[in-house]
């Protein structure tokens, strides 16, 4: 029993390390400009105010940033899944010439961070005439996670018992039909997890958006938040409020999807 107390204390300490900085941000977002510079600092603002939130939601483009991020991240995540699922399935089930080189190439490409490719990706999107469009961003994002997603999904498909395919073949089901009606329902948690993982990656992506977008009305949330930091002065309490507005839906979604997300992602990525 005494050991259990220690465990609870250790868990609480771990949680505090990750939560307190965020709570400080919340505290800051409820302060007035003068309150930010109070000494000693207060965790609970003396004159808490929602003025920063009202300003961010009605007088800035924060609502547009949220909308843009939602559109871009979900479109890109959908596109990634749409191309990765058939490819991963084929690489898992079929044996054909060129399969191993393809897998190796995917693994190699997976290691390349998009930051490395900023300059050539910029000129590619430029030549496609898609600079400063959501379509350009979606195109690049969609490709970004394809190699990783194919690998993860391939692991899920590998884990599906062989007998299921035998049964489907005996029934005379086509490859597409087998995938759609039999295999996908089995790996649904994995698919969901990959999709959530990709959504998170696209939601947070900053540097491609920074380079590929110009118009503020098309900015995604990270870019919008970055533009809050002014050259001359930053109103930290306002930035904190905008950050919190951006944070709440994401953190809420993750708290909600956590189990599903963790179970799914790791089942694929960790070969037991």
């Amino acid at each position, binding site marked *: 029993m005494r050991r259990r107390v220690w465990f609870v204390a250790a868990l609480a300490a771990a949680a505090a390390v990750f939560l307190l900085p965020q709570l400080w941000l919340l505290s800051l977002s409820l302060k007035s400009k003068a309150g930010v510079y109070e000494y000693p600092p207060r965790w609970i603002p003396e004159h808490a105010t929602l003025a920063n939130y009202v300003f961010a939601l009605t007088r800035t483009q924060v609502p547009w940033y949220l909308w843009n991020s939602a559109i871009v991240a979900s479109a890109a995540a959908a596109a990634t899944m749409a191309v990765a699922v058939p490819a991963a399935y084929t690489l898992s089930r079929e044996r054909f010439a060129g399969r191993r080189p393809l897998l190796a190439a995917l693994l190699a490409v997976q290691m390349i961070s998009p930051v490395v490719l900023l300059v050539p990706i910029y000129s590619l999107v430029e030549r496609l005439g898609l600079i400063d469009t959501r379509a350009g961003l979606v195109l690049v994002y969609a490709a970004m996670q394809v190699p990783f997603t194919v690998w993860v999904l391939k692991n899920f498909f590998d884990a599906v018992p062989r007998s299921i395919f035998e049964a489907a073949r005996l029934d005379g089901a086509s490859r597409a039909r087998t995938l759609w009606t039999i295999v996908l329902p089995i790996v649904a948690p994995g698919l969901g997890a990959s999709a959530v993982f990709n959504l998170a990656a696209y939601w947070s992506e900053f540097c491609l958006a920074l380079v590929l977008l110009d118009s503020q009305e098309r900015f995604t949330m990270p870019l919008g*938040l970055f533009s809050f930091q002014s050259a001359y002065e930053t109103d930290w309490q306002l930035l904190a409020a905008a950050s919190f507005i951006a*944070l709440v839906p994401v953190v809420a979604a993750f708290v909600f999807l956590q189990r599903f997300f963790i179970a799914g992602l790791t089942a694929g990525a960790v070969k037991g």
Partner: protein
Amino acid sequence: MVVGAVDAAEQALVTPVRVGRPDAPTTLSVWAQQDYSHLAARPAIADVFASVFDDWAGAHPDVQLRVSVMPALELHKAKLQLAAAAGRLPDVASIDSFWLPLLAGDVQPLDDDWPLDDRRDFLPFTIDTLTDPTGRILGMWHETDCRVLFYRRDLIPAPPRTWDELLDVASRVARERRMAGYLYNAGRWEATVFDHLAMFWAQGGELVDRAGRPTFGEGANRRAMLRLLAFLRATIDRGASPRSVLGHNDYQQLTGAAIAGDAAMFLGGNWQLKDLQTGLSAADFARWDIAPIPTADPGTTSTGTGGWVWVVFARDPARRKAAIEFIRDVESPAHAARISEATGHLPVRRSVYRDFPIFSEDVWYRRFGEMLASGHARPTVPIYPAISQQLQLAIGAVVSGERSPEEALDAAWSAVLDEYTRQTTKAARMRTGADHVAWLPAVAAALFPLGVFWRTRRTDAALTPWLLPAAALVTVVLVYPMLDLVRLSLTDATVAGGSYAYTASSYRALVSDPAFYAMIVVTAIFVAGSVALQLTIGFALAWLIDAARRRRAPGTLAARVAVVSAWVIPGVLTGVLWKILLIENRSGIVNYYLSLAGLGPAPLISSPVLALMSVVVANVWRGCAFSMILLYAGLQRVPRELHEAADLEGVSAWQRLRWLLVPQLAPVLLLNLVLITIASFNTFDLIIPLTGGGPARRTEVISLFMYRLGFYDLEAARSAAAAVVMLAINLLLALIAGRLMARGAAEPQRA
């Protein structure tokens, strides 16, 4: 009136994305400076602009605006240059005055629609600087500023006029009061140079000659610059200033220190007066005063005047006319007065100082107005940005004590001369015509997938549609750019898409750049530190939660959610969050607790070593969740019987870890290692807001180095060369990782 109110309610003329009537036939795109539109992130400014734009929109029913606020300084500049290269410039933009030469080919003259008598109302330097050699006026200055010494009257009875006086009084106050005697900007940004140029100009120094050739490293100019650098070094040696000045890359840090009572003097801008006024009680504010910038020799004076300029890029005459009408309306005396009152910047119209009581009767504005008389603007020459970059590095290196003033200046001078030679010779040999080599990467990228499909065409043709979309997407968006990167690195392209020639000069420039090797060390420390800590802590957390769960301790889910919540935060936000936590004056929460523990305040962002540690800590804080999730899942797969057997044998926790958990988790650990190494190499979004790569590039990891070259300096080829190095390291890692993973997968079968 009533009708107007109803109209307004039904159809607001000023919304966050549109100004004007939605059905207006002409749409002008406007790229505004951050604090200069209704979208300013500062309510007082936003309010004034909302009302000014509303006035304009009411009077111009057939024009609507799409306003975008551009990111801070350097990025705004780079965006404009990229847009210029691609012909995507907005109709109207607000630019920093010294960028004009970079956009000279695209800026449209305003003469036709801007009457001469109105121009006469502007301060002479604003017109002179913006007039081209043929006498056309290229921009409308919209506000200016000047640099001054802020000081506490209660601590410093008479403001220092010379550097010697400043050093004496600042070191005395610092010693007696245990506060910073004198603060200034020495981080990696434009203000670090610009704020100090006054001290150079006051000695008669000139950065460039009339032809735009750099001169600051020659003769008397060199001596003046060396004196300035030696003075900056002395501020540290004499104890007048703390090393934390190296972390100042935002004027807010100076204001914050002043408000917190941590500074007796600082070199700042006139607009900061307003922030002192709002941040301090009336009694505390009364202790502050301003004085001219101290200089090397008595009796000299100078101040840097900057400011922003409206320029018009619209080539179509009707749009150009509408654009000029818009900026004239915003800058009309009544509007300009209200705007300057809100921004705290200085008006550039003489009539505003004369006719509006807030300026004519205000003692501060009168004094700023007097200082503007000795104002000196930065030269509008193409080499200035390079000079500024190099002097930022020189100041950083001297203040940190890494280099002597001579060494730092010589390095800056030779780098600027190289750049100048390149600029002048490059202009002479522009490549024209089609570039067939540019097709090579596209052909090469297509070869591999085509090869695969060619081989499968007979036997497995049915598989092609299953694989093709993924293969095509990856080939076009990832593989082709990868190969194109190699091609780009072998050119001397400056702006992506610009003209160029094939050469190996970018690699030569890279390997002869000492900053390149410094960056490699920084990157190695950052990646190794991040990976080691993240893996250890992630493992510890996973083990803790797993062990607690097996003992049915409450709170495991809550702890897990807490850790993951840090990971879902976008990287930019993590950077901002940690910057707020690590603020170095007394408004920083981490330093507050360090002080309570007797350890602080510590220069967590401004000391080179601590800044790198801070960046690693922030990165680990964010990344731990990822390691934890994977390892926790791995732990779930450790068979229960093994744990039970270990319990029975009563093995120690260490033995259990070493002989049970690590072997069981080896494949997961390796996968983790690979993934977080990639992530750490990728790290960029977190560092940009946190340190910006400073102090003096000591947190500039490879991605930042490469990004800065490509999108701040617009050195596409050099950036590509650095990226090729990054690519090579990544591919090598991929190879090692692939081997390890293959072996890891094989092991359980052998067991």
